[in-house]
C-alpha cells in the first residue's frame, strides 16, 4: 500500500493534531501559533479545530512562553511551546536550563516538567544572523534536557509524538530549510520513535558519516554520487543529539574505521565534537583514519549576503569531498 507523502512541516502538524486529539492535556502555545497558524504554518488548522484555549497566542516574550509552559507542565498539562525562531530562545534559556531541566532533580522526583519546546532552526534560507543559527550545542550540556533533531518526515512524526509523551522536557529543533524541501512517506497510524536512538540511514563499508538534521540529506546526496565511484558510505542519523546514542555511534565508527562527523553548526564545542570524543574513547583500535569533522566556520553568525551565506553553509560538494578524502586515505 502506498503511504501518504508529507512534507517535513506537514508531519509536524499531523503529529501535533494527533496528540491533541489523543490527550486533552496537550496544548500548544507561542507567537502567532493561533489564528495565524504559525509563521511557518506548522500549527495550521489547529486553532479552528481545538479553539483558543488549547492553541494559545502569546506575547513576544520567550521567557514567558517557557515559564508558563513549565508551570502548566508541573500541574499535569503537556504543553508544546513554540519558539518562533530558535535564535530567540536565549531569553528563555534561564527557564529552560535552570528550571525545566532541574525540576525533577531539585524536587526529589516529586515534580516533573513534561514540556516540549518546538523551535525552527538552521540556515541556508537567506535568514541572516537572527534567523539562521543552530542552537543545539548551547543546550547539549544540560543533563535533564533531551534534544531531538529529526531529518525526515517519518522521523518528525514519530519523534514529536514521543517527545510530547515524554515525562521530561524535550527541545525539538525543526530545520527551516527542511520544512518544505524534504518530503517523505509518513504512515497514517499512531507510532512513536524512542528518544535517544540513532538510525542507520544507509549501510556502507568504506566511510562512516555521523550527522543529523538537514545534513543527513547532504550526506545521502554525496553518498549517492560516490557510489558511482565505488565508494560505499555508511550514514548514521543521530536524531537525538542529547543525550547521544553512544552504542550506535561506536558501532557505526567501528563499521568502517573511517569517520566523518558532520554538522551545520559552527565547529568548536558542537554536538559532533562530543561524538568525536566518544569514538576516541572507545574505538582506538578500530580506527583506520583520523576522525574528521566538517562544520561551519567558527564565525559569529551566518552572513546575510547570498554568496557569503553560501560560503558559510556546509554544502553537499564539501561532504562529498571529505568522504572521498577519507576513502582514499
Amino acid at each position, binding site marked *: 500500500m502506498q503511504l501518504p507523502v508529507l*512534507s517535513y*512541516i506537514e508531519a509536524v502538524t499531523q503529529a501535533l493534531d494527533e496528540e491533541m486529539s489523543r490527550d486533552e492535556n496537550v496544548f500548544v502555545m507561542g507567537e502567532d501559533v493561533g489564528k495565524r497558524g504559525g509563521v511557518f504554518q506548522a500549527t495550521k488548522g489547529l486553532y479552528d479545530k481545538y479553539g483558543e484555549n488549547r492553541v494559545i497566542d502569546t506575547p513576544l516574550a520567550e521567557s514567558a512562553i517557557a515559564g508558563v509552559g513549565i508551570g502548566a507542565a508541573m500541574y499535569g498539562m503537556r504543553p508544546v511551546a513554540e519558539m518562533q525562531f530558535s535564535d530567540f530562545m536565549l531569553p528563555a534559556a534561564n527557564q529552560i536550563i535552570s528550571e525545566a531541566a532541574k525540576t525533577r532533580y531539585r524536587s526529589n522526583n516529586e515534580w516533573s516538567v513534561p514540556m516540549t519546546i518546538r523551535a525552527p532552526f538552521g540556515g541556508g*534560507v537567506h535568514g541572516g544572523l537572527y534567523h539562521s543559527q543552530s542552537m543545539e550545542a548551547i543546550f547539549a550540556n544540560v543533563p535533564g534536557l533531551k534534544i531531538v533533531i529529526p531529518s525526515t518526515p517519518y522521523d518528525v512524526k514519530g519523534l514529536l509524538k514521543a517527545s510530547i509523551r515524554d515525562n521530561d522536557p524535550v527541545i525539538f529543533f525543526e530545520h527551516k530549510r527542511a*520544512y*518544505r524541501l524534504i518530503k517523505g512517506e509518513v504512515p497514517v497510524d499512531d507510532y512513536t520513535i524512542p528518544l535517544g536512538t540513532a538510525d542507520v540511514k544507509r549501510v556502507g*563499508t568504506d566511510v562512516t558519516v555521523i550527522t543529523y538534521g538537514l545534513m543527513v540529506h547532504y550526506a545521502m546526496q554525496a553518498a549517492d554520487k560516490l557510489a558511482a565511484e565505488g565508494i560505499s558510505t555508511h550514514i548514521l542519523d543521530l536524531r537525538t543529539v542529547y543525550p547521544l546514542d553512544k552504542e550506535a555511534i561506536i558501532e557505526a565508527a567501528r563499521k568502517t574505521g573511517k569517520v566523518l562527523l558532520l554538522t551545520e553548526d559552527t565547529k568548536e564545542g558542537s554536538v559532533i565534537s562530543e561524538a568525536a570524543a566518544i569514538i576516541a574513547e572507545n574505538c582506538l583500535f*578500530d*580506527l*583506520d583514519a583520523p576522525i574528521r569533522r566538517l562544520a561551519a566556520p567558527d564565525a559569529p553568525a551566518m552572513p546575510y549576503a547570498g554568496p557569503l551565506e553560501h560560503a558559510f553553509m556546509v554544502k553537499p560538494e564539501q561532504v562529498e569531498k571529505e568522504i572521498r578524502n577519507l576513502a582514499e*586515505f
Partner: protein
Amino acid sequence: MSVKQMTMPQLGESVTEGTISQWLISVGDTVKKYDPIAEVTTDKVNAEIPSSFSGKITELLVDEGDTLPVGEPICTIEVEGAEPTAEKPVKSAAGKTTQKEEQKDTSMKRRYSPAVLKLAQEHELDLDQIAGTGRSGRITRKDVEKYIASAAEERTITEPAAVAAASQPSAAGCFSEAVAKEVVKPAVHAPRTSVNEAGDRVVALTGVRRAIASNMLRSKHEIPHAWTMIEVDVTNLVNYRNQIKGAFFKKEGHKLTYLPFFIKAIVTALKEFPRINSTWAGDKIIEKKVINISLAVAADEALYVPVIKHADEKSIKGLAFAVDELAANVRENRLFPDDMQGGTFTVNNTGSFGSIQSQPIINYPQAAILSIESIVKRPIVINNMIAIRDMVNLCISIDHRVLDGLITGRFLARVKELLETINPENTPIY
C-alpha cells in the same frame, strides 16, 4: 546584445521551490525591468516575479504548472547593450590544471593505523607483504581485511566463496561428479604433461575458478558423499502458483517462481530435522540453530552461493524477494564476501537448466545439499488409474559421517509431504 537568464526567486524563508502558475509574457515580448513576467505559487505565498532586465523574451524554459527549485532558470531575456556574455560563472581554467600524478609515492607505506596494526597482530601478518591502496601507499584496514579474506580462500577455506562450475553449457548440471573432476584436476595440480594441440585454447584461471576448484576438491576429498533421490507430485503447487502469479507480479513487481515454495518446504523440514542442518566438526557434530540457505546462482563463468540468512523467518514473498535480490547481485557483480557466508544448507535449482537428475557436491562444511530438478508432466498411477501429474525430482547428497539413509529418507519424505499438500490455506504468500 547579450542573453540573460531569469531564475526562480526565493519567496520567503523555508521556501525552496515554487510553481509557475501563469506566464504573463510570451516569447518575443519586450519587457522593462520590474515588469511582472510570471505568477508564482508556493505553499506560503503567491507572487509575481518582476523582470530583472529590460529586453526581449527569447525563451520560456518551463511550462505553466511546473514546480522547480529556487535558483533554477525559468526564461531567457535578450538584453540591449554590450555587456560581455554576462552571467556565465567565470571558472578559472587554472582551477582545472593538470592534477599532479602521484608517482608511486610510498611515503605512507609504513604508517600504520591502530586498526591495521591490531589486525596484523591478530592474524600474525607481515605487513610488508600487503600492498597498500591508500594515499601514498598507505595500507588501509580494508587492504588487510581483503588480504586475510583472500588468504583464507586460498589456504584454509573456512567458507566457500563459490561451489561449482558451469564452464560449458553442456555441463549445466554442474554439480555432477564428472564435471567437477574435470575442473578440479587442472586447477589444483598444474598439469605436468600438458599437451597443447593446434587450435586448443588455454584459459587462465580466475580467482573464482580457483576457489571453486579447491572447494570442490576439498569437499570430495574430505566428505564421504552419499546420494539419493525422491520424486514429488507438485500438481497442487503448480495450480496454486499459476492461480496467483499474475496478481503477485502486478502487486509486487517480482515474478513468483516455484523456488520460494520449495525453499519454504525445505526450511520447514530442516527445523524438524536439525541434524540435516549441521556440520561435521572433527570430534563432534554441530547442529546449527540458524537456518541460512545457500543458493546456487549461475553467473557467466562461475557459480556463486550467496546466502539467504534466517530463511525460516521469511514468508513466500520474503523468499521470492531475497532470491531475486541475490540473483541480481550475482549478475551485476555486487556480491560482498559477507553475502556468501554463514550458509547452513544448500539448495540448487538445477531444474532451471532442464536437468531432471543430478548428483550435487556438498558445499563444504555443510552436511547436505539438495537440488530441485525440472517439473515435468508425467503419467502417474493414482488409485489404479492413470493421471497426468506435474512431477519433480529432488536429489540430495549427504555427508555420510553426519547423516544416514534413515534420517535423510525421513527428511525427504517430510519435504515431499509438505510440497504435495500445499494449498492457499497452509501456505500463504504473506
